[in-house]
């Protein structure tokens, strides 16, 4: 019996095989999507090691949820939704952690708050670290890194992954109008930042 040629199968053919635990099918899914999924997460968190961990987690979660996948949806959108939610959750959690150590909330003066603040070195969020990052060190990458997470997702899904507005709305779980608003504002911010850098 000749082995299955997984590369010739569509996503929807691969999903049930992978759901039954066929390594070849999941390996093919990984082959197709590891790069775009990692790419999205890496640009979101701007830390290669963390991005690999999150991307791994996204694929493992997707694999464990394969049996619940509805074939009427596009598989890649479903996978990106998992990856994006995971990444946004991580970023939000990191923001909360940062806020919680940013000085005592009940401090009544600036000096008091500064005195209770804990010094934290988080290289992934410092603007100068964006430039130091060789892979994402370009001007436009740096500007994307400065956007708020929802704007970053919108720009990356649209311009790197080439998703339509409808697919983006599905992945980001927001209305179509919100997607357009995110994208328009994100691009306007980027353009303004790049013009500012260019003008210096």
């Amino acid at each position, binding site marked *: 019996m000749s082995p299955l040629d997984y590369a010739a199968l569509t996503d929807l053919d691969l999903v049930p095989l992978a759901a039954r635990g066929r390594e070849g099918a999941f390996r093919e899914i990984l082959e197709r999507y590891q790069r775009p999924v990692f790419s999205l997460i890496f640009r979101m968190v701007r830390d290669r090691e963390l991005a690999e961990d999150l991307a791994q987690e996204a694929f493992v979660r997707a694999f464990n949820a394969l049996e619940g996948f509805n074939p009427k949806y596009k598989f890649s959108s479903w996978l990106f939704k998992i990856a994006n939610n995971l990444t946004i959750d991580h970023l939000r959690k990191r923001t909360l952690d940062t806020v919680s150590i940013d000085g005592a909330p009940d401090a009544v003066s600036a000096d008091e708050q500064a005195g209770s603040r804990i010094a934290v070195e988080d290289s992934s969020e410092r603007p100068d670290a964006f430039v130091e990052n060789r892979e994402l060190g370009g001007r436009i990458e740096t500007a994307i890194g400065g956007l708020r997470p929802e704007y970053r997702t919108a720009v990356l899904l649209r311009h790197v992954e080439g998703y339509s507005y409808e697919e983006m709305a599905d992945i980001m779980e927001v209305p179509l109008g919100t997607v357009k608003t995110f994208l328009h504002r994100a691009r306007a911010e*980027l353009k303004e930042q790049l013009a500012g850098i260019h003008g210096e």
Partner: protein
Amino acid sequence: MDARHTHLSPEHIQAFLEEDLPPQEQAGVEAHVRGCSGCRDQVESWREFLAQLNGLPTVAPSAAFSRSVLDRLELEPELDAATAPSASDHPAWEVLQEWADGVLPRRLRVRVDRHVQACPSCSRESARWKELFAAVNAVPVLAPTSDFSEGVLARVRSASTRAQEAQSPQDQVVTAPAPVRGPRVAVPDWIRSLRPRSRRGWMVAGGAIAAPGVALATLAALVASHPLVSMGDLAAFLWIQTTGAVSAVASQMAGGMLESMAVFWAYTLASGVVSAPLQFAAIALAGVGITGWAAWIFHRNLTLPSLPSLVGSYARSS
């Protein structure tokens, strides 16, 4: 009207370049751009910017990425002629044991599955392991005897007693002796069976025991506080009522009863009440107190006989 208001907004330009406007509006913007050099420059600037965004490359993960993901998953490995285990490739007996126990990782389990199917000796060996595991799993859980818990409690009590008895003489001098609650009364079983089983039962029993005393005390308080009634009036009233009732009963009974000691003592008591009502009230209140104290002793003896502290107290007092 300010000319700037007629120019295209960034949102309009973006939607125009992505052809996301209704056809009529798309045509209108196109016409405007042709006639407005400022907007034409803006559109060109946006077109270049969007092209730049579209040129962003994807970034590859490390070479070990897919292997790391696959290692975290329960996947069935693809076996072909080159990787399938041969019948002579026997697994170690520890592996076979884990396979029979169902704890082997999936990737290895699949390989052993196939080998066992193809190898009669490993098949027999694994069957023996499975029989052994089934026999061990079937060993019943053994229960202790019914008096096991009582035995443990008795040992705990006696250990507590010994610990208290082992106190040094010096300790016994400086330590205040625990209050002794009196000798333990042997209560018959039929009385124990009347013991309330719940908190509510105890409340009812306590109320029943205390009711006569409370009623008597309340009555005495009412009489003492009323401006027109004195204890003497009440005693006289009770005396009249009581003697009337006694006379009615007595007239129906033998005349010898009038000379009995009980009636003599009742008469003496009533006379005492009439002559000294306040002293009588004090004696009644004392009676209520003694009744309550007796009820408390009764309760302690019936419900808390096994507390180590009590056991210790009894042991020292005996």
